């Protein structure tokens, strides 16, 4: 196994994912297989190769910094799990 249980636990925490106990062993096994598989990239000779930034070598367009969208808060918040007075509700973060 290229990854151990503690590493996978750490990755899951970084990714903000809670894994159920019955998912955990399988995740360690499958993630290890994926990491082993992509490890073959280390053999490629890439000295002096520039990493790709865009498949067509285009640069990102910029636009003038102007407000173009109308307010659609109420419409958009229809999909929110919990709102009050136009604000998103989350568990208390400050004691």
């Amino acid at each position: 196994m290229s990854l151990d249980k503690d590493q996978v636990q750490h990755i899951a925490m970084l990714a903000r994912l809670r894994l159920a106990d019955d998912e955990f062993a399988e995740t360690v096994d499958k993630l290890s297989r994926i990491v082993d598989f992509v490890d073959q990239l280390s053999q490629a000779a890439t000295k002096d190769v520039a990493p790709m930034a865009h498949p067509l070598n285009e640069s990102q367009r910029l636009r003038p910094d102007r407000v173009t969208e109308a307010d659609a808060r109420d419409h958009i918040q229809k999909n929110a799990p919990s709102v009050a007075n136009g604000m998103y509700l989350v568990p208390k973060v400050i004691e």
Partner: protein
Amino acid sequence: MPQELHLQSLTELAAGLERGEFSSLELTEALLTRIESFDPSLNALITVTADAALAAATRADARRASGDAGALNGVPIVHKDIFCTRGVLTTCGSRMLENFVSPYDATVVERLDAAGAIVLGKTNMDEFAMGSSNETSYFGPVRNPWNVECSPGGSSGGSAAAVAARLAPAATGTDTGGSIRQPAALTGTVGLKPTYGRVSRYGMIAFASSLDQAGVITRSAVDAALLLGVMAGFDERDSTSIERPVPDYLAGITGSLDGLKVGIVRQHFDAGLDERCALAIREALAVLEDQGAKLIEVDLPNIDLSVPTYYVVAPAECSSNLSRFDGVRFGHRADDPEDLMDLYCRSRGEGFGAEVKRRIMTGTYVLSAGYYDAYYLQAQKVRQLIAEDFTKAFADVDVIAGPTSPTPAFRLGDKTDDPITMYLNDIYTIGANLAGLPGLSTPCGFVDGLPVGLHLVGPHFGEETLLRCAHQYQQQTDWHVACPETYR
């Protein structure tokens, strides 16, 4: 007696509506009836928008009567459930978005709507487009119309199955590593992934933004040309959309293949390819030769690294894109969270399926401190090498031809134990995504009663050549008109 409506192609239906042979309402009703009878056994659609479709068909008939009909006026299609559709459930095949009603339309949806197309529903797909078999969908796997024990491929499996079973004449799809072309190959349909930036990604739920591209699944190259012409073009709302005029794809399609240089990649015929599929591909290449094309061997020395490259780049982008699902603004939220961290972790843990979680974690790992250079940066360098290989090859040839998929459709459940086995399904298609190139799959034979696809890849903005090549091939063969018996 005119051919039954469901057997007619997109182009034939558009022409029939134009001539007034039938109304959009009749056509829409006929296809909705088929969906009702056949979809329970295929599971190709997550949402059927019957009432909205009938209302839209009535409006299309009215527009026709007043002489105000667009290119696709009154023609029904289906959208992959990755495209945001205003006021309609948009799930992306995930529990995370099980109840998400999109507040806006994707550009693709808007353009097809403006051309008069009718939306019959939203098609099933691998969760967040991550999969090659449709088995990662929260809404259950799609079944292949050629054999319901088999997968239709993925991730646009619902779109491909719907078109193959004649539930709709055409469908939209998206392709990040082969998700249009592989299901098209496995269901005997035509799948076109355009050049990166050709079709707007606005409103298309992001998986891997440097690889994702919207395209079409149809029953012929002509239909793909018609649909792409409507969907393609610059969109200022997509920051990677390319400002470049859209050619008349239909006009170029009838040109001859005389002198067309077709590249063959030796590695594409190595051990991984089913021998019977290889035979079908070689016969297809001979048909192109008979039409005047010249076959030329080309070398893509780094192509064997395309799958591992993809499985670093795509998960890295996915881990970043899917961080927006936090259980706060939209999407699944866990019950009774203890604190904010618990809210994030449980909402995401419950909302995402196993494959999506694996890819997020793979991406998180390859981007994490201490591993970034070894994995992510190295993969982007190898990606550059793969792209340069294609550039060199296209100095000598107009198109590269080979298999779309190493095998015909496999049985549901056969490849779910080992992620790598599943990933290798896309071995022939992933290169085009890494390099941003257009690719097309067209039916070219059968193995054990299951369709085989011929894969064509072109240089950037080479869609016209791909469509011409596929169209001329389809003039000499009838694989693309074959229909599974149950759905005739």
